[in-house]
C-alpha cells in the first residue's frame, strides 16, 4: 500500500485512476509530440473537480488532507507528468493566498479554482531563478494603486490562468525585504503573456513569460503587508516541495511498472528477462528508490499536516524524488533496450518529463543547500 488513506480517499483515487487511464494516459502522447495544450483533456479534468481537491471546504473545495492529495497527484503524474504539473501549479498559486490573503482574497481565488480555473505563481525572472533576491519586477505606489513593470519567465499555466500571484519589488533598496506579493486577475490591463515554451518534457503543461507593462492594480490586490513577499514566496515553496516530490514519484512508479510489464513479455536466452537476475536487481533498486521517495513525501506531508516543522523533510523529499525519478526512468529505458529509446514506447518520455523535477520549484542544488543548513544546525 503506497499511502495510508481512508476508504473514501481510496474511492476518489480509483475514480482519478479511471479518469487518467481513459482520458489522459494515451491521449497525452500526441500532445507530447505537438507540444500543444490539450484543452479538451483539461476541460474534462476541471469538470470532475480536480482543480478543487486542495481548496478548503469553507471556500467550496474538497479540503482533502495532504496525503490524500499526494495519492491523487501521484496518480495524475503516473498518467502524464505534464498533466500533474498543470493541476498542481494552480495550488502552488493558491498557497500564498491562503497563507496571507484577506478573507475576501481567499474567497475570490478559491472560487476561481472551484469553478474550474487555473492559476499561476510568478516568482521566477530571467535573472532570478534560485536567487529570488534578484527580482527586477517593480511595483511602484501611485495613489491608492500600484503600477507594476517587469517580466516573469517559465510560468506554468500563464496563458490560461484565471489569476496570478506576482512577486515584485516595492522597495529596491531593501533587497528581499522590499519584495511584495500581488494577486492579479486575468485580463488586467497591461498584463500579457509571452510565447509558449517549447520544452524538453512535461509538454502537456503550458509555460510562458508573464509581461507587465504599466500594469495598474489597486492596493487591495496586495497579498499581506508590503515587504513580506519574499517570506510568503519561500513559505509557499516550502509547502509545495513535497508535492513536487510526489509528482516525481508518479513518474518513477510509471517507469517501474512499464519496465516490469516489458520484462515479463520480452524473452532472451529462452526465458522472460524478468527471470534474469541482472534485470531483477535493477527492478528491485527501482522499487526501493520509488517507495523510499514516496514515504519521504508522505513523511514531509504528515509533518506539515500536524503543524510540525517540515522544511528539511520537504527539501529531502523533493530533492530525492526528483533525482530518483531521473534514475528510475533511465533504468526503465535500459531494461526496454532499443525499445526504451524509441518514441514508440512510453519510457523515453518519462526521462524527459523527470528531468524538470530536478529543476523547477527550487533546483536540487538549492534543496541541498537547504538540507545542508538544517543538517549543520542539528550538529550544534
Amino acid at each position, binding site marked *: 500500500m503506497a499511502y495510508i488513506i481512508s476508504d*473514501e480517499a481510496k*474511492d*476518489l483515487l480509483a*475514480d482519478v485512476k*479511471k*479518469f487518467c487511464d481513459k482520458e489522459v494516459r494515451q491521449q497525452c502522447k500526441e500532445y507530447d509530440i505537438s507540444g500543444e495544450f490539450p484543452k479538451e483533456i483539461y476541460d*474534462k479534468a476541471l*469538470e*470532475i*473537480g*480536480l482543480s*478543487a*481537491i486542495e481548496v478548503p471546504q469553507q471556500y467550496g473545495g*474538497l479540503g482533502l488532507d495532504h496525503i490524500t492529495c499526494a495519492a491523487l497527484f501521484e496518480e495524475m503524474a503516473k498518467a502524464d507528468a505534464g498533466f500533474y504539473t498543470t493541476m498542481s501549479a494552480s495550488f502552488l498559486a493558491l498557497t500564498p493566498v491562503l497563507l496571507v490573503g484577506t478573507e475576501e482574497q481567499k474567497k475570490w481565488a478559491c472560487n476561481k479554482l472551484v469553478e474550474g480555473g487555473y492559476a499561476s505563481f510568478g516568482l521566477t525572472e530571467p535573472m532570478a531563478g534560485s536567487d529570488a533576491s534578484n527580482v527586477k519586477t517593480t511595483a511602484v505606489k501611485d495613489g491608492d494603486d500600484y503600477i507594476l513593470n517587469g517580466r516573469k519567465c517559465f510560468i506554468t499555466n500563464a496563458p490560461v490562468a484565471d489569476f496570478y500571484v506576482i512577486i515584485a519589488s516595492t522597495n529596491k533598496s531593501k533587497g528581499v525585504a522590499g519584495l511584495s506579493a500581488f494577486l492579479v486577475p486575468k485580463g488586467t490591463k497591461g498584463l500579457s503573456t509571452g510565447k509558449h515554451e517549447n520544452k524538453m518534457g512535461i509538454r502537456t503543461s503550458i509555460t510562458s513569460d508573464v509581461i507587465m507593462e504599466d500594469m495598474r492594480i489597486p492596493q487591495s490586490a496586495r497579498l499581506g503587508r508590503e515587504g513580506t513577499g519574499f517570506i510568503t514566496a519561500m513559505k509557499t515553496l516550502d509547502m509545495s516541495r513535497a508535492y513536487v516530490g510526489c509528482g516525481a514519484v508518479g513518474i518513477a512508479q510509471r517507469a517501474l511498472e512499464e519496465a516490469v510489464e516489458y520484462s515479463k513479455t520480452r524473452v532472451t536466452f529462452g526465458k522472460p528477462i524478468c527471470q534474469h537476475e541482472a534485470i531483477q536487481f535493477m527492478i528491485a533498486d527501482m522499487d526501493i528508490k520509488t517507495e523510499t521517495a514516496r514515504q519521504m513525501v508522505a513523511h514531509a506531508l504528515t509533518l506539515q499536516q500536524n503543524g510540525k516543522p517540515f522544511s528539511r523533510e520537504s527539501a529531502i523529499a523533493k530533492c530525492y524524488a526528483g533525482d530518483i525519478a531521473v534514475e528510475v526512468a533511465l533504468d526503465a529505458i535500459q531494461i526496454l533496450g532499443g525499445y526504451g529509446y524509441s518514441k514508440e514506447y512510453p519510457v523515453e518520455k518519462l526521462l524527459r518529463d523527470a528531468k524538470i523535477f530536478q529543476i523547477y520549484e527550487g533546483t536540487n542544488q538549492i534543496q541541498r543547500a537547504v538540507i545542508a543548513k538544517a543538517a549543520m544546525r542539528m550538529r550544534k
Partner: protein
Amino acid sequence: MEILVCVKQVPDDSVKVVLNGSGQPAIDKIAPVANAFDTYALEMAARFKEANGGTITAVSIGPDEFKTSLKNCLAVGADKAYVVTDASYDGSDSLATAYVLSKAVAKIEELEGVKFDIIFCGKETTDSTTALVGPELAEKLGVGVVTCVTELALNGDKIDAKQETEEGYNTIEVAMPAVLTINKPHYDPRYPTMKSKMAARRKQIPTLTSADLGTDASLVGAANSAVKTISLSEPTKKQAGIKINEKTFEETFAKAMAVMTEAKIF
C-alpha cells in the same frame, strides 16, 4: 418525471473470465463494476431528467456489496438508491429476476409515494448477456417496452424512443409508464465529480428483503427458476498456426505467401 434505473453489478468486462478449479467463473479477483449498458441507461436517464425534471432512483438485486456500484450511480445522476438483498433470490433466472424487480418497483413506489413513469434497463448485462430481464419486467408490470434504445424524447404523456435496428433505426412511440432497454448511445457516461462522489458516499442506501417485497418463495431462487444451468465450460481453443516474423518485410511476406498458397486458400 419519476425514473427508475435497474443496475446490475458485474465483473469488469474488460477482463477475460475463465473457469476456476471447481468449474465456476473465476470472478472473485475481477473488479466489480456497474454493467456497462446500465451505466448508459443511467446517463440517458440523467440527461432526460436534466431536460424534463424529476427524480432518478437506482435499484439493484444482489448482495450488500452491490452498494459499491449503487454509490457510483448516486455520484453520476441517481438521487436515491435501493438494494434488494435476499439469499432466497440467489440463482434466479431472468424470469424470476423480472418477478422480483416487479415487486421491488411496487415496494419502492409505495415507500416513496410515487409512480414510476419510465423504467430504464441496460439492453443486456455483460456477464450472462441474456437480454431478457427488461422485456420480461415490462410484461410483469403490464406496460409497454422498447428495446435497444439510443435516444429518447418526451412527447406529452408518451415517449418517443429511437430504437437501433439492424438496418438503421425506428422511432417508436410508447405510452408511459414504460420500460426502455438501452443500447450504447453516441455519448459516454459522465465521470463522477470529486464532490458528487464524496456526497454519494454519505447517502444511505436502504436494503429491501423478501419480507419487504412480499415475494412468493415458490417463484424465486435457483430451484424455482425455469432455466437451470447444468454445467459450464470454456470454448475449445483454436490451435494457433504459424507466426511469421522474419528480419525483413520481403522475407516475411514471401514466407507468408508460400504458406498460404500451399494451403490453397486463394
